[in-house]
């Protein structure tokens, strides 16, 4: 199991949720994981129902069996100051630079510097050891940028190493790249069973592979339960209305005769079933597309009660059951 688990996905597919659930799943039974946020959205804090995360690692959840999930929201500007501090012992000069806007400038405009700092911080956490020489975190899970930008984001170090041909940034970029392109890293993509996210997932995988970044698994999120089985689906189009009306009536929902309460339910219920059938067919199409990607597939259920902390634990359990941790 790779120690750096990067979770990406199209916007709206729930990649933050999946990343959090994965961090919980990996922490189960006494492990320590670090969940890293890189886009400053405070999605992790919202998910774990805690206050906004500072730029500081802190414990945010206890996993079943005693494990711990820690979280860190990386702020690129503070990361750069950290970094300058570490290499140059800048002290006050660092603050002066910040005042002048240099830090802001460097992290926003200097090509990829922001991304180098973000991935660099995550890689540092992966490699960090305690005094006894053990890894501080068993796993680091990164809630990464969306599929459309993930390859550039992870590969930016290569780009920077090319641009900044010497100097500490160059070295840093190369060190980070060594981790990211090794089996120590796995990049997972979260999708829904819808055309656009699936297409984007396929494109994203092709890009990652072209950049020789290690692709992990595909996680299909928010999968609706199968309510109607194959027999039902066959029957939906052909069943006589009156038979359904009778059945509804037998279930205690009123009269089956024309105008009866049960009879009045038939059309809307069949209309909902027709929508379900259409949607189901589309989902099957997308499943087939995903099947052709040649990657392990996982499916997480749509939670009927919406997403909350309890739901997160539910998804973590599901991921464990499916052998993702």
């Amino acid at each position, binding site marked *: 199991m790779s120690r750096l688990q990067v979770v990406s996905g199209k916007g709206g597919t729930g990649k933050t949720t999946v990343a959090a659930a994965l961090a919980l799943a990996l922490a189960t039974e006494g492990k320590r994981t670090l969940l890293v946020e890189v886009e400053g959205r405070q999605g992790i804090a919202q998910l774990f129902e805690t206050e906004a995360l500072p730029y500081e690692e802190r414990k945010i959840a206890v996993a079943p069996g005693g494990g711990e999930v820690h979280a860190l929201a990386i702020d690129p500007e503070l990361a750069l100051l950290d970094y300058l501090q570490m290499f140059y012992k800048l002290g006050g000069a660092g603050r002066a630079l910040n005042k002048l806007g240099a830090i802001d400038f460097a992290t926003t405009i200097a090509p990829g510097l922001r991304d180098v700092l973000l991935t660099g911080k995550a890689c540092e956490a992966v490699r960090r050891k305690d005094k006894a020489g053990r890894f501080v975190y068993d796993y680091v899970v990164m809630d990464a940028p969306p599929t459309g930008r993930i390859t550039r984001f992870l590969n930016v170090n290569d780009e920077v190493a090319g641009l900044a041909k010497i*100097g500490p940034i160059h070295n840093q970029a190369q060190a980070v790249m060594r981790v990211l392109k090794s089996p120590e890293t796995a990049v997972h993509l979260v999708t829904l069973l819808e055309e656009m996210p699936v297409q984007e997932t396929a494109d994203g995988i092709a890009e990652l592979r072209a950049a020789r970044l290690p692709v992990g698994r595909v996680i299909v999120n928010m999968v609706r339960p199968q309510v109607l089985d194959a027999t039902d689906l066959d029957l939906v189009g052909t069943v006589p209305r009156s*038979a359904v*009306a009778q059945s509804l009536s037998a279930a205690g929902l009123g009269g089956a005769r024309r105008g009866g309460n049960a009879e009045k339910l038939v059309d809307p219920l*069949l209309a*909902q079933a027709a929508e379900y059938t259409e949607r189901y067919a589309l989902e099957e199409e997308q499943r087939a597309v995903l099947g052709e990607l040649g990657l392990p597939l996982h499916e997480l259920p749509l939670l009927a009660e919406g997403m909350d902390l309890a739901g997160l634990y539910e998804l973590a359990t599901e991921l464990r059951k499916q052998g993702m941790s």
Partner: protein
Amino acid sequence: MTPDPAHAKDAARHRLSPARVLDVDALLDDPTTRIVVCCGSGGVGKTTTAAALGLRAAERGRKVVVLTIDPARRLAQSMGIDSLDNVPRRVKGTEDRGASRSDSVEGGGGSRAGGELHAMMLDMKRTFDEVVEAHADPERAAAILANPFYQSLSAGFAGTQEYMAMEKLGQLRARDEWDLIVVDTPPSRSALDFLDAPKRLGSFLDGRLIRLLTAPAKLGGRAGMAFLNVGMSIMTGTLGKLLGGQLLKDVQTFVAAMDTTFGGFRTRADATYKLLQAPGTAFLVVAAPERDALREAAYFVERLAAEDMPLVGLVLNRVHGSGADRLSAERALAAAENLEEPRIVDQEGGKAGLRNSPDTDDSSESPASERHSPGADRDIDQLTAGLLRLHADRMQLLSREQRTRDRFTARHPEVAVVEVAALPGDVHDLAGLRDIGDRLAANRPELPETPAEA
């Protein structure tokens, strides 16, 4: 602004709480509406909404251009804009559907014509290149385009896409060939990027730091600048160490070239910003009835207000309804369980015929007589149970969506809302867009006193 909890709770009992309703056709028909900006978080259907609004406006007689950022491939193909050439293309297959106008003939060629739909997909790098080419002499432009720093920047570091979308909007507006521009916004990391990025990029490229980096000599002579100069040399030194000397030099030459060729990015960014605030611009926040999307939407509403950006309403996509909403989830589930335990019913009821409720025994239209095969009955009962479970799911979804929505309206009762019913599949042709357009405009619920004006 503070929500009234009692009121919100009460409203939750109705399908539609008394939010103001957005009249989409009035907005699109108003000739003073010149720009419609669709914004919102990722995955809520911004692009589809923008395209559907554009098509509807065109078919109602306006000359429209839709600027999309990242359309689904099949949607782009169906609009004929899948070739990335960064110029608007006329979309074929639009119809004149003059709608409410009395002098129009639906589908007829002789209606008040003139409606046209053009569409384009933003090519961010190309747009950036064009800006450079338009403002620099060829030699200098070539130098900029070849600069590695420029190449990285233009290929899409944080903010570039947002900036270029706004740049393109400015260009389209300046050409004055269309009387309505509908803009999709980039799938930002957060709602704020889209408003902030142009300003940030503009101020960086035109800012104090850049001047320090590029023109130390100019500053040297001035009194009071000595300190800055010292700071500057520390800084260039540090940045040089950090980034490597070559990169810093690339940055300096790049910025110098940019600086002398066009009169400041900030000016352009400011102009775009003012364009967005101007009358004639209408912001639509797009969301889905989900917690995260609506939270982001609320955030956006507040931000637009703070920036004096004219918000006209919220488009709530993918809202579910039910034709059988009088049957509650609980009753549907109970009924389904009834059907799934037929043995108990059979034993108690004896003959199968008695399973039907009393008012079904009229045998002239005799549904009962069709139930001869017990096997078929079981299948049908099973299907019916499935239908009821499906309905229970739908009702639960409905009430969850309603709660989420009501929380938004309680917080922002001033925002007009239009709901778009969910479709089972994806939209990837003009007919689908037209359907969405109809759904956008059909949102005139049973609330009499909600005149929606822009």
